[in-house]
């Protein structure tokens, strides 16, 4: 008997997304990633005495945008609170966050699993500041702190425990990521830490109503890590229960290299954050006019865009889903179409060659090394019969590597279709002469042999031969024999 089948996994997520504002949440320092340690800092960023936080209005607007895009209610009155704890990367020893009145609440995102739609409810979205970063093990004398990230604005999105598998969690995160990217709220670069998730997991026998004891998993830096951590932790919990053990409410740290988690602290050791109102920042009144203005300015969201691609361009649901799940990819597609390319053809190139090369070369989809107009041009010269399909793939590879205009590549390398009989006839004759076996097969009625012969001719011409003409020449020449 498969024991795992008897259990239900219950998952809730706490997602931190770094907002794409150009300046920090409480000062005018840059939020840019990278930079030498402690260069994007002011006295406020390092908590010097006498400095005061002044809330960046853009941060409030970005959070409202995120809330509206995830069907949340926007609070008319909201305030900041202090979360107190000591750690050297937290310069004031309190994080300015939101406690009892988050800026957005009661929203949801819809996911589709095995063709069935499911709502994952969002309990709240609140704004807060990021901390700095401790750098260990590089100096024998001790650790150092880099406060460049200190004060970078974040939103924390907290879901209800509405997900029941790693796959559902993945779909939710994909959906959320797309929404945050579409609305420009966050660039969601996991490798730079601008999207991070903590996962709350519990398991319970399917027959049981009440939820099991949950653990919280931290340090999940990629979608892959999140999925693996959920799978490993639910398995661990089930095994623990099956062997008569007990699950303790605790925080666990995921080690992605080893594929295991270990306990960080139990609930008894849980910190008392002593939340209380931040009196340096007056409460924020959000009037409904402003909210409506922001609502009107929201761009088309992934779900709407997906439907439009299916209806307007006739893309298959799968293709539309893949392309719209990334704003960068989707924007690239739109631009290609705007530049005159046939939508279906553009989609095929993106789904096939482009995604393959991105994956192969480890390039992020927001860093496609050539502009959409180049893909449109490539499609254009294929359709006009200026190059063959075989050549087109080579040109595409070249475009990806060099960033050059496809027309220029074709010209420089002489890749245009060869469509004159004078050039092709000798090639056809040569192929017939060198492949008596295939010729005999053809004569014996095996028409498949023609394909082989054509392939040989294509090779001779490095793929440039006009397939129609060469086909015609073969048939004529073979008839003569």
């Amino acid at each position: 008997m498969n024991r795992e089948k008897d259990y239900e996994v219950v998952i809730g997520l706490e997602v931190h997304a770094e907002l794409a504002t150009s300046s920090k949440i409480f000062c005018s320092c840059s939020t840019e990633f990278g930079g030498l340690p402690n260069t994007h800092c002011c006295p406020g960023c390092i908590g010097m005495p006498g400095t005061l936080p002044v809330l960046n209005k853009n941060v409030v607007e970005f959070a409202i945008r995120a809330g509206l895009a995830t069907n949340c209610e926007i609070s008319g009155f909201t305030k900041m609170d202090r979360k107190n704890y000591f750690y050297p990367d937290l310069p004031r020893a309190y994080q300015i966050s939101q406690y009892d009145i988050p800026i957005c609440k009661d929203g949801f995102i819809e996911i589709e699993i095995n063709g069935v739609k499911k709502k994952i409810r969002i309990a709240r979205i609140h704004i807060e500041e990021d901390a700095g970063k401790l750098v260990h093990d590089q100096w024998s004398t001790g650790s150092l702190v880099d406060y460049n990230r200190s004060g970078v604005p974040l939103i924390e999105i907290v879901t209800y425990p509405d997900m029941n598998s790693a796959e559902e969690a993945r779909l939710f995160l994909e959906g959320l990521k797309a929404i945050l990217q579409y609305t420009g709220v966050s660039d969601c670069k996991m490798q730079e830490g601008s999207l991070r998730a903590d996962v709350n997991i519990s398991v319970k026998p399917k027959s049981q109503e009440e939820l099991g004891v949950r653990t919280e998993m931290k340090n999940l830096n990629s979608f892959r890590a999140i999925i693996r951590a959920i799978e490993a932790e639910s398995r661990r919990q089930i095994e623990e229960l099956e062997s008569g053990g007990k699950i303790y409410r605790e925080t666990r740290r995921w080690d992605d290299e080893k594929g295991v988690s270990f306990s960080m602290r139990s609930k008894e050791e849980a910190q008392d954050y002593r939340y209380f109102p931040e009196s340096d920042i007056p409460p924020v009144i959000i009037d409904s006019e402003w909210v409506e203005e922001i609502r009107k300015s929201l761009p088309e969201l992934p779900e709407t865009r997906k439907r439009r691609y299916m209806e307007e361009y006739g893309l298959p649901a799968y293709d539309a889903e893949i392309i719209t799940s990334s704003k960068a990819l989707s924007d690239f597609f739109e631009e290609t179409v705007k530049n005159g390319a046939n939508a279906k053809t553009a989609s095929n190139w993106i789904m096939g060659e482009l995604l393959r090369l991105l994956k192969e070369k480890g390039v992020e989809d927001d860093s496609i090394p050539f502009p959409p107009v180049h893909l449109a041009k490539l499609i254009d010269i294929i359709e006009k019969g200026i190059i063959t399909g075989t050549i087109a793939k080579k040109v595409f590879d070249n475009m990806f590597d060099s960033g050059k205009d496809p027309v220029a590549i074709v010209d420089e390398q002489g890749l245009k279709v060869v469509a004159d009989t004078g050039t092709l006839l000798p090639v056809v004759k040569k192929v017939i002469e060198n492949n008596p076996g295939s010729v005999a097969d053809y004569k014996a009625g095996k028409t498949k042999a023609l394909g082989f012969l054509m392939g040989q001719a294509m090779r001779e011409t490095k793929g440039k031969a006009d397939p129609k003409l060469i086909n015609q020449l073969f048939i004529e020449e073979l008839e003569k024999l």
Partner: protein
Amino acid sequence: MELHELSISQLGSLIKNKEVSIPKLTRYMLDRIEKLDSAYGCYITVAEEKAMEQAADVQARLDGGNLDSPLAGIPMAVKDNICTKGILTTCASRMLYNFIPPYDAHVVGKLYENGAILLGKVNMDEFAMGSSTESSYFKKTFNPLDTERVPGGSSGGAAAAVASGEAIYCLGSYTGGSIRQPAAFCGCVGIKPTYGLVSRFGLVAYASSFDQVGPLTRTVSDCAMVLGAIAGHDPMDATSTRKRIPDYTKALVQDVRGLRIGIPGEFVDDSVDEDIRNAVFKAIQVFSEQGAECKEISIPVMEYVVPTYYIIALAEASSNLARYDGVKYGYRTSEYKDLIDMCKRTRSEGFGTEVKRRILLGTYVLSSGYFDAYYKKALKARTIISREFGRAFEECDIIMGPVAPTTAYKIGEKINDPLKMYMEDIFTVPANITGLPALAIPAGIDRNNMPIGLQLIGKRFDESTIFRAGYTFEQTIGSNWTSSRMNNQVNNQVKNK
């Protein structure tokens, strides 16, 4: 009269008429500090070189016609919890014994713009936690009127410097009673402005929802002039007002006719020293004779004022002082095992007893299980107290009472009895809880020749009315009446030392 006995406007006209140069006046004040400060202990840092540079610079600006301010060239000092760029700012704590801010507090910048000359940084209770300036890590400050007595606190160094003529005026800071009470103890004028009137940027935070900066001066008009220079919106402080700041010097008229002054019975009950009570009754008589309408009112919530204030202030303090962990600046312990150990040792060694007591109390009232019983309840009480004061202001324009229940007490008398010390704040904290403006002015002396302070609490952002009443009172009982007598008393103290 000697230079240090003059008011801002008197010195201003000497400077304008070239009867004294700014460098000469500054030198005079620095010499005076040199001569007297070993006796009074007002200063933590004397910025001699910088002051002389500033003096030359301001004189040049003035001569070039690039400066027009009554504060131009007037030497002053700033409490040591107000940040001064390039000058040590210690908060009278070992924790910040070496802290030199890379920025000026907004108020300091404003004074510099007005051509003020910074003589140095004055002593205070450690992190402004205290009412006697006895908790300073560096030194005690003595009351210049009787050096066996405290100058009050936490702005004790500021009040003592003004009273002894070691500065023409000072900037103090105010959380509980820290400007008005030392002003009263040293016979000076001091104002706690409406919360939000003056930017807190650069004021080292104690309790963010109470803290304000305010001037300590010898006269009401000096006070109005300095406040006018430092008040107004600052984009670096989200709680600072966007209101237009009136010209407070226009309020300096001797006219209180029709002004309604309420005196809460709770402010003159048995807990108040008899001499002080009598001084308040005398003030009622003075104001009535000048045409004001004085009446008794009642504020029944007075007994909750001190606990409410201390719960909220200490809660905020426990969080505001958490940043001193030895990581980024200030004191760091010399030996430690790891990060946590470093933080613990640094805080144990860097803070004094009173600061640690307040951090512990504040942490306690915010802790889970106690939050609702203390902090949350105190917030509710704060709302009720504000409402009661609001109601009282429906029937009067000013609420009048003593600044403190006693005059300056002997050094060491209350330092070991924190509760008694906290109760010193009973009449000053209501204005802080409610954010209302309150002016302290001298109102006579007690049987020991120690000054008595009278307090005028005004409506929100109505500093003008309390300035008008204070000015009228000061003019009626004699301009500089206290200070000329005070000067003699101060001189006697110096001789005795």
